C-alpha cells in the first residue's frame, strides 16, 4: 500500500464516507425492523 495522495472519491472528506456507512447500516436496521414486523 503506497502512502500516495489521499484523493477521496465521491466526497471531500473521509468523515463523509464514515457517515454514509453508518447511515446505510441505520437504514438497513430500519428496513429489517419493518420487514420483521410486516411478515410476522
Amino acid at each position, binding site marked *: 500500500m*503506497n502512502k*500516495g495522495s*489521499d484523493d477521496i472519491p465521491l466526497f471531500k472528506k473521509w468523515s463523509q*464516507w464514515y457517515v454514509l*456507512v453508518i447511515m446505510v447500516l441505520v437504514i438497513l436496521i430500519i428496513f*429489517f425492523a419493518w420487514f420483521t414486523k410486516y411478515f410476522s
Partner: protein
Amino acid sequence: MSKIDWIVLGLTLLTIITYGLYKSRTTKDLDGYFLSNRSMPWYLVLLSIMGTQASAITFLSAPGQAFTDGMRFVQYYFGLPLAMVVLCITFVPRFSKLRVFTAYEFLETRFDLKTRVFTSFLFLLQRGLSTGISIYAPSIILSSLLGWNIVLTNIIMGGLLIIYTVSGGAKAVAYTQQLQFVIIFVGMFLAGYMIVHQLPEGVGFIDALKVSGATGKLNVITTGYKNGSFDWNDRYNIFSGVIGGFFLALSYFGTDQSQVGRYLTAKNNTQSKLGLLMNGIVKVPMQFFILLIGALLFTFYQFKPSPVFHNRAVEEKAYTTPYKDSLQYIRQQYDALNLTQNNLSLAFVNEGHQTAAVENDQIKENLQAGDIKMQKLRVDYKETIKKALPLADSNDTNYIFLRFVIDFLPVGLIGLLIAIIFLASWGSIAAALNSLASCTMIDFHQRFSKPPVNESAVFVSEREYRISKWYTFGWGIFSIFIAQFANRMGSLIEAVNVLGSLFYGVILGIFLVAFYVKRIGGRAVFWSAVVSEIAVVTLFLLNQYEIIGLSFLWLNVVGALLVVMIAWFLQLFHPTRVSVS
C-alpha cells in the same frame, strides 16, 4: 452425482486453478509475492476481504441457521460496518505509514521485538490449526452426503488450491477470489430461484415469505428481552450484534494477518479504505440474502415432505442400532404432522389471497402450533440418534442446504453447487496460507536470519521469494495433516471458534494498548500478554473440567481486558521508556 455434475464440478475447479496460474505473474520478490506489489484497486481488495471471510461453512451453515433459528443471525454482522470505520481511522493509516508486510511488524516499532514475535506466534498457532479444521469441515459434509472418501476429499479440498497459491502468492489469491465470488453468487441466486420455482402452483415469492414469517423465521430484528428483562444467554440480538459484533470484527479485520494481508495489497491508502468501507456497506445485505435462502427453504418444506434429520448417512447408521423402533415411531409422527402443515400452509396462502383476515389468523395459529410440535419431534429424534450413536454428530444444521441441493436441484446445478463449496473453501484457505507464509517469512525468517555480507540485495530478495513459496507449500501440507485428525474435535464450527477465542482476545488487547494507551511500553505489554494468555487457557481448562461455568465466547473479552489492565498496572509500578513510532 451424475456424469454432467462431475463435468461441471471438474471444469469449474479447473477454470479456477488455470485462472490462478495465469494471474500468477508477479515480481520475484516479497513485495510481489505477499502484497501484489501493492497494486490492487479497491474492488479487488473488497472481493478479497469478503472471499477470505466467507468460507464454505458460511454458505452451508447460514441457510441451515435460518432454517432452524430464523434470520436473526444477521444481527451478528451489525457491528462490522462500525469496525470498518474504526479500522479506516486508526489501523489503516498506521500500517500504511510504516509500509509493513504483517500487522505484527507494527508491534516491534510500537513496543519491541519480543512482543512482535509473541503475537505473530499466537497467530501462526491459531490460524494454522483453524485452517486445518476449515478444510475438514466442508469435506466431512460432502463425504457424508455423497459417500466420498474423507482422506481424498481433504486432500482435494486443501491440496488443489496450493498449486496457484504457491505459484502466484497474494495476486493469484485475490484474482481467484474475484472469479470465485462471481461463481458463488450466480450459484446461490440459482439455488434461491429454484426453491421458489419448485413451490406449488399459485404460491409465489411473497406468499413464501408470509409462510416463513408466520412461523417466526423472518425474525431479523430481535431485542433479547424476555418477560421484561434482558436475556444475557440470548446469543443473537441487536445489542449483542452491534456491541459484540463490533469487537469481533475489529479483532478479526484489524489483527488477523489473513485479513490485514488483503488490504495491505491495495494500491494506496484510499483504495484500502474504500475496500474496507464498501465491505461495511455490502456485508450485511449479503448475509441477509444468504439467510433468506434458508428461510425460503423452510417454507419449501412447509409444502413438501420434509426430512426429520438432514444428515442421511448418520440417520441410516442409527437405524442399524436397537434404537431403530424409537426413531421410526418419531418419524411416523413427524410425517403425519408434516402433511397437516402442508395443507395448512396451502390454506394460509389461499385465504391470504382472499383477504379473509379472521380465518387466516386462525390458520396462522394452527400453523405455529404445528411448527412447535415438529420442532420438538426433531429434538427428540436428534436425542435418540445421539443415544444410538454417541460419537456421531447429531447436529444436522450444516447438512440442510446441501441435502436440498442433492434431492431437488436439476442435473448440472448440483455439480455447480458442490463446486461452490470447494471455491468458498479455497478462497479463505488460500488467503490463510498466504498470511501464514508471510508471517513465517517476515516475522521470523527474515527477522532472525543474517544473509552473508557479500550477497547482493537482488540475490537475497530472490532467495527469500523462493523460500516463501516453500513456506506456503509447507503450511498447506500442515493444514491437510491437521484436517486428517480434525474428526476428534467434536463440533467443528465450535472448535474453530474456541481456538479463535483462546488467542483473539489477547492479540486484540495488545493492539488496543498499541493504538490507544500511548504510555504503556513493550516490557509491560509483553508480560501482560503472557500472563493473560496463561489465564485464558487456564479458564478454558477449568471450564472443560466443569470446575467453573464460562462460555468460550467470553474468553475474547476476558483476554483483551486482562492485557490492557495488567499492562496498565505493570507500567504504573515498573515504568519503562516508551518507544515513539
